[in-house]
């Protein structure tokens, strides 16, 4: 077991890319540490499956090198890579029993029969497939079939990584939770590097130690779920993670203040690197934009969404053509359509220039000096 290194891996279908836009996957450097669980998160067509297929060898990248430990495997065929992969739709061998399906990857690699049986038994127990072991795989439900696919992915103990390509798409929602926690448990038990592709943020955040957020063929941020939530490095991450996503407001920044639609907002840090009056975006999550009965920006509530466990208010910053944002309504506070006051937490307000987060200079440090 070893780390997997993407050394400038990029891919353009059809070879020679002429511009950035020709890449299905823009060159990326990243080390997948052995024993960790990663999620590749992004909308459809963002290049996550391409990246996964490059690691498994189903796609040979047009650029860069792929290392398993110190070994360059960029051009090695799939069968020689020691990778397991589970696909979006269940792939089972119709004519075999469940047990034979699970044993198939081991049998092909010439493992001894007693060992195969032992391993198949272990994996079947983990996935609750023991009662079905003797049955023909053909007649089973989609859920059970996908469990078999998962099992075939997990059955080899010597793999460098197990890759999952949206494996729970066909699974019934109620079972999804169960299978996901099962996968998590399997990960803990087997201590394998797992990479899990999904477009579902809940799936990504609950499964992974680290999430790679991808957009338009680019890895825009790699971080823990908390990092992605608290400090999105890219407006896309802010918008894509969280439900609803981060509010993004066009405005200008000078020093430690921002100007949005005529309002002056204090910021948690100073931005001397941005030219005075630089046009930027301010990002603040609805969780940190709260309606208040005390001091605050004068706004107009235009819509209220009752999510059951919390209330969200859509507020306009006033005036025609003004921007609007989503804010939380504190528990117990009555709210109506019409004028209200809004408080934005300066420490949680991020500044984005060119869609990327700008690191400010801490105000407290400045004051202390």
């Amino acid at each position, binding site marked *: 077991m070893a780390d997997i290194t993407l050394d400038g891996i990029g891919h353009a279908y059809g070879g020679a890319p002429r511009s950035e836009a020709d890449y299905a996957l823009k060159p990326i450097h990243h080390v997948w540490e052995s024993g960790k669980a990663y999620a590749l998160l992004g909308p459809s067509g963002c290049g996550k499956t391409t990246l996964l297929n490059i690691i498994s060898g189903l796609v040979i990248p047009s650029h860069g090198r792929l290392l398993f430990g110190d070994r360059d495997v960029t051009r090695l*065929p799939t069968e020689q890579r020691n990778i397991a*992969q589970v*696909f979006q739709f269940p*792939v089972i061998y119709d004519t075999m029993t469940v047990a034979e399906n699970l044993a198939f990857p081991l049998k092909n690699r010439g493992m001894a029969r007693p060992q195969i049986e032992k391993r198949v038994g272990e994996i079947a127990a983990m996935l609750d497939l023991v009662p079905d072991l003797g049955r023909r795989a053909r007649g089973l439900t989609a859920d059970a079939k996908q469990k078999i*696919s998962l099992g075939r992915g997990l059955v080899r103990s010597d793999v460098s990584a197990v890759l999952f390509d949206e494996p729970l798409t066909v699974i019934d929602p109620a079972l999804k939770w169960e299978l996901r926690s099962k996968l998590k448990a399997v990960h803990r038990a087997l201590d394998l590097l797992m990479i899990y592709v999904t477009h579902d943020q809940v799936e990504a955040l609950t499964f992974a130690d680290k999430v790679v957020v991808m957009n338009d063929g680019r890895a825009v941020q790699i971080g823990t779920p908390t990092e992605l939530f608290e400090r999105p490095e890219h407006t896309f991450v802010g918008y894509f993670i969280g439900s609803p996503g981060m509010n993004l407001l066009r405005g200008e920044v000078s020093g430690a203040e921002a100007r949005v639609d005529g309002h002056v907002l204090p910021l948690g840090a100073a931005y001397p690197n941005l030219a005075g009056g630089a046009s930027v975006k301010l990002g603040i999550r609805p969780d940190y934009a709260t309606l208040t009965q005390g001091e605050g920006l004068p706004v107009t509530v235009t819509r209220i969404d009752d999510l059951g466990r919390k209330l969200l208010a859509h507020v306009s910053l006033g005036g025609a053509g003004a921007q609007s944002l989503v804010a939380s309504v504190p528990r117990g506070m009555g709210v109506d359509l019409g004028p209200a006051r809004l408080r934005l937490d300066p420490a949680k307000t991020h500044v984005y220039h060119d869609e990327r987060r700008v690191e400010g200079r801490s105000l407290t440090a400045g004051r202390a000096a």
Partner: protein
Amino acid sequence: MDTRAFANRAWLFVVPVMIVVLFSSLTPMMTVVNYSFQDTMGQNNFFWNGVGWFQNLLDPTTAVGQRFQGSLLRNLLFSAVVLAIEVPLGIAVSLCIPKSGWRVGAALVLIALPLLIPYNVVGVIWQLFSRTDIGLLGVGLTAAGVPFNVTQDAASAWFVIIVMDVWHWTSMLALLCYAGLKAIPDAYYQAARIDGANRWSVFRNIELPKLRKVLVIGMLLRFMGSFMIYTEPFTVTGGGPGEATSFLSIDLVKMALGQVDLGNAAAYSLVYNLITLTVCWVFFTYTTHADQKDAA
């Protein structure tokens, strides 16, 4: 108001079809049934013969029974041989057809060519091809020292007829299998690579099971085609030498039109028809039964 009563008018739309079916198959069929239970001495005088013709036909000690049994066995052997060759060959050809690019179209057109040739033309082509005086195959084999003569040697006649059928019909199985192969999602092949399966294993565990349904249909069509074959072997050998290539249809036509043995021929055709129907029914119940097992 209950409007459902008016829905019965829908049956009226079926009436024209019923009339056509009545004239196209039911009436001619009843004529045959008529002949099979009666006998005539001419002058359009018929008298009842009960199941006499059938007893005669199914009793192998009679002349007619012997003829029927011989033709049936020959025909079953012929069907078995062509199926045994065409099915594996069709699968093999379908696996070799390119999967993308302009070569797909070129390959499919080339493969489909034999299917576009009229049956009697196929017969003429092979009749000429196998002649020992002007046919390339006949002349070639004779020159190579192989004893070959379609008109005198039963083995030669069988050889030509089987090769001809394989040439004519393997394409259909190849095209059916190709369609079946195209329907297998890429993920299966990818998973097989991940699982370390070799080429044979991919064929055995993925491709062949996924081809099962098209193969059942293909085998049914080919069985029926070869079991009812007439034009091509008749053009090549005329059923000979002797009776060697007299299959059921050839023998039946000889009996009905050559010898005008109407009673025997009528019983013959009904039994022949019953055999084909039975095989169809067995295939049908087998496939639907297998589908139900899949769905369960």
